[in-house]
């Protein structure tokens, strides 16, 4: 066993001990603490019913066929051309945000919600009437702490509570 190897063994063990006694941790304690995403996070999408011009570009650009134009029952009149409005299927959505980017009136906007539990596949389909109601509010048993990820020279990522 050479001297060099021994030194490297000692260095490896010393580094291990250094981390054993330090109090650094990377973990975000997820259900108790939830990350507050930076602006521009591509989460679930909210729909503005009033400004939408029903152009259908969002449905045309959608890469996953998640966004589709549905016949809006309350607006369509019999005998006339049916009015179509966008609806989204979150079972298919890949959160690329193309629909938001292409919307000419900014009627589609990102929210920061992304972790929603559904019991059935059908619940994940949002036809226009449901889509206008906005994204589901997260429900918690115990209110989690909102944490913001802050880049840090010492620790890489640090999580700080949001006031």
């Amino acid at each position, binding site marked *: 066993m050479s001297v060099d*190897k021994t030194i490297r063994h000692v260095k*490896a063990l010393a580094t291990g001990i250094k981390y054993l006694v330090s109090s650094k941790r990377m973990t975000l304690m997820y259900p108790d603490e939830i990350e507050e995403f930076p602006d*521009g996070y*591509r989460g679930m999408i909210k729909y503005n019913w009033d400004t939408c011009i029903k152009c259908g570009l969002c449905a045309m650009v959608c890469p996953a066929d998640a966004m589709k134009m549905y016949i809006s029952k309350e607006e369509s009149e019999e005998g006339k051309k049916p009015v179509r409005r966008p609806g989204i299927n979150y079972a298919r959505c890949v*959160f690329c945000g*193309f629909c938001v980017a292409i919307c000419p009136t900014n009627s589609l906007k*990102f929210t920061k919600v992304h972790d929603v539990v559904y019991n059935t596949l059908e619940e994940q389909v949002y036809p226009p009437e449901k889509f206008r109601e906005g994204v589901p509010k997260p429900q918690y048993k115990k209110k989690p702490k909102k944490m913001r990820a802050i880049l840090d020279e010492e620790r890489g990522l640090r999580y700080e509570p949001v006031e």
Partner: protein
Amino acid sequence: MSLEERELEVLIGPQHPASGHMRMIAKIDGDIVVELRPNIGYVHRSVEKLAEAKKFLQIIPLVERPSLADTTANNLAYVMALEKLLGLEAPPRAQYLRTLLAEINRIHSHLYGLGIHGVMIGSSTAYMWCFGDREPFIELAQELTGARLSYSYIIPGGVRRELPSRFTEKVEKALRYMENRMKDYFNLYLNNPVTRARLEGVGVLSKEDAIRLGVAGPNLRASGVPYDVRKVEPYAAYPDIDFDIITEKVGDAFARVMVRVKEIQESIRIIRQVLKKMPEGPILHEKYIKAISPKMREYMKETGEVKFPGIFANLRIPAGEAISRVEGGRGEVIFHIISDGKMSPYRMRMVTPSFRNVILFEHLNRGVRVADIPAIYGSLDYFPPEADR
């Protein structure tokens, strides 16, 4: 006993802790691997055929899917091919932003590879550290693009977002952190005598074989071939950036690991230069800016968020062929697009580095020990979905 009787056929995968989404059919004689054949195709998703049924813009998220740890390379290569067909070039600032994301992506893709390799030879600490240290870079990319991995950031004619406020500071913090952490990586893992014993001299790929077999990326450079698409055929902002091609001479598993480690350090250098030299200007080609309504143009200026012009929904690409090459984290990504002037490509060919490296499983695993199989597998940074597409 004849050799036939002495051999034991072991099926490693697809349900094995370290096989990934593939199967390796190993014939072993005692502790020596006589032959190992990779059995790929378990995660084939028919990306090339699907692309023929999708519109050009819709293919962007699709080509990212096969290699989730290294999405920017595919995204960039695909868009570069489109731009060649469209005959336009993204403005300089967009080129720099593309380079920035590509390098951030390279760092966390390399950390992913190093981490998986660590746990394959038994160092769970290397795995946890690498995956933990990916997080600052993923966080950076998320702030820039809005998503953790599937960025879909690069679009024909430019990029989708302007730099967020105080982004340079944040990047600098993450880079300094990584530089400091590297010392501990060396002390605990890379210079650890046990790591060295497991990796040095294992799975040696000679320079000649590397060239003959058409190996790509860090695996090629570890055998002493200074081939890097960023230098050979510079794209994006790389012509203006000063950086070196990392090579190692030996070509063993440890050399492949060291190429990745040094490339992380080189990427840190590139990112610093990119942020320093970043020119001012638009981030989308003016042809497309003109196609956006004035109100939305105003909005773009305010938020830095690019709006797509309406023509993007049914983007028509002039008939023709284009090939583009990009150096991704795992190696050279090639896209070949044949367009017949319609809204979807006539044919899209996607050559991924993992697909070119899979041949090494058979080549390197001859005559090694059973325990070397994961050591070699991990050192190749092979990603089954990327190879299968």
